[in-house]
């Protein structure tokens, strides 16, 4: 019988939206679902997973699991697969999922489908769609052999229902050793209360056109006033005007918000691949031939330094 094991992700001690989306989708399909939850000081979050439909939560709560690492997580999920009898493992295609999904599949001697944006489960088969070739092509694919199904799913394509936590049925997993050959020297956490790119419903992004750190500071209040995440193009991050965590695109974060504002972004192919799945795209750029205008719903040909203050005024009017 089919059973799904969802690999839960946490940030700041709370279950992330991408995990809730997967649980909600599994529930909507009437699938039996367990979850594996690992981290440090996160045990009570098992109830959130139970509230979203996880029958059993396999729990690993240990200081060594505070930051994701390949070896311990591969061992933990493998342990949870065996104990739960799961036939499918669903991960998010976050940086955690991108690292873990192939390693986990290989450990089980099976293949994987990664960064899936649509899929359906028929008995033990999964048929999926995933963007490839910089989102210029959609690949329809499925598994061709028997065995454990391992897939990673892009966030933002399924809706997480609001549910109340319920008392979880938990199983504690023994804490495996980390990799003897990898030592964590430092974790450079960029602490912020900013909205995260892959969880935002609105993103305001700055491109080369902002001209420097001052230009970023000029644009940022618009993001704050909209409750939006603040994104950037690769050019902006490589120039050091903003840290890399702001980068939108195949090299940074793949995003699919409801509204994406591209300010001074010309639209390099890897940026377009990373944001063209946004529901509504607004762009401001001086160059009417900029590639970004090929994907925009509302394109403003003009100077962002003149446009942003007007945008802020208009937003203020709506918000009051």
């Amino acid at each position, binding site marked *: 019988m089919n059973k799904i094991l969802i690999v839960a992700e946490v940030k700041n001690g709370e279950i992330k939206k991408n995990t809730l989306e997967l649980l909600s989708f599994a529930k909507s399909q009437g699938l039996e679902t367990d979850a594996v939850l690992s981290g440090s000081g996160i045990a009570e979050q098992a109830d959130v997973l139970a509230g979203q439909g996880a029958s059993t939560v396999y729990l690993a709560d240990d200081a060594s699991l505070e930051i994701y690492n390949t070896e311990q997580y591969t061992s933990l999920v493998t342990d949870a697969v065996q104990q739960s009898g799961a036939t499918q493992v669903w991960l998010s295609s976050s*940086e955690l999922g*991108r690292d873990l999904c192939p390693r986990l599949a290989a450990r089980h001697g099976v293949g994987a489908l990664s960064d899936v944006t649509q899929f359906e489960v028929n008995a033990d088969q999964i048929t999926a769609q995933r963007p490839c070739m910089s989102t210029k092509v959609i*690949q329809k694919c499925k598994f061709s052999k028997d065995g454990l199904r391992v897939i990673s799913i892009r966030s933002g394509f399924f809706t997480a229902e609001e549910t109340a936590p319920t008392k979880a049925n938990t199983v504690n997993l023994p804490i495996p050793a980390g990799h003897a050959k990898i030592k*964590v020297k430092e974790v450079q956490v960029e602490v912020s209360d900013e909205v995260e790119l892959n969880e935002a419903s609105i993103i305001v992004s700055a491109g080369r056109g902002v001209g420097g750190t001052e230009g970023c500071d000029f644009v940022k209040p618009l993001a704050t006033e909209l409750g939006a995440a603040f994104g950037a193009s690769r050019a902006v991050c490589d120039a050091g005007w903003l840290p*890399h965590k702001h980068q939108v695109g195949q090299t940074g974060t793949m995003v699919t918000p409801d509204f994406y504002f591209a300010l001074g972004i010309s639209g390099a192919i890897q940026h377009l691949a990373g944001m063209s799945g946004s529901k509504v795209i607004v762009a401001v750029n001086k160059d009417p031939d900029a590639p970004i205008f090929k994907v925009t719903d509302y394109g403003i040909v003009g100077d962002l330094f003149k446009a942003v203050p007007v945008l802020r005024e208009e937003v203020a009017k709506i918000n009051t």
Partner: protein
Amino acid sequence: MEIIVPIKQVPDVALNIKVKDGDVVEEGLSYVISSWDETALEAALQITEDLGGEVTLLTIGPDKAVESLRKGLAMGAHKAIHVKYDDAKQTDSFAYAKILQKVLEGREYDLILAGKQAQDTDAGLTAPMLAEFLGLPQVTNIIRFSDVSEKNITLYRKGDHATEVLEMELPGVVTVNDSLNEPRLASMRGIMMAKKKPLEEIELDAIGVSADMSGAQGSMTETLQLDKPESRKEGKCFEGDEADTVKQAMEFLVSEAKFLA
């Protein structure tokens, strides 16, 4: 330091990609080294320039894949291995990782440096699968490295909420994010020298890859069809004084797209 850089020859995705009858139209495609692989090669060249040693390119592909190997040699790689292979269409990451494992077993190397994903599939599966098959540690998506020696390398991995600074004992598998560097261009001299560099050709059966390990038989997943994504509907464009155009755009955003509703 001996570094293996697996590279993949892929269609240039910056160009227009046509799709017909569930497949990509071959005509008009131009083939290049997957860009993340070039980033990996650049990193490998920098390391060997500092520490000595050699960079070996490795590709699995048809005859024309030699062009990509020659380009990598022209950039500065020392030698290349071409695993001759014509079954690409039916082959998934799992099968590629298994073949790479067969090629690398019994060879001496300190580091495998790969792109974080290939530009054709955008899957990002092969390198970590290879690491598992070879029993090696992996660090993916690095944006920086430092303190490289024959024994260790310090890697800066861009994780979801932090940059993780990890020291990995070699040998190991590392995948790179293209923020890492700007790959060099091949010089005229490099192009001339590339013609004389060693290029080893390998047939699958010579390394013990049987028919059931390659192509569709050796793959765990299959492509059913390839399509164009749904095209976005034609957008509205506003030109003129920003004080007016922004207001006009905002009116549509609110009325049509229900912005901030």
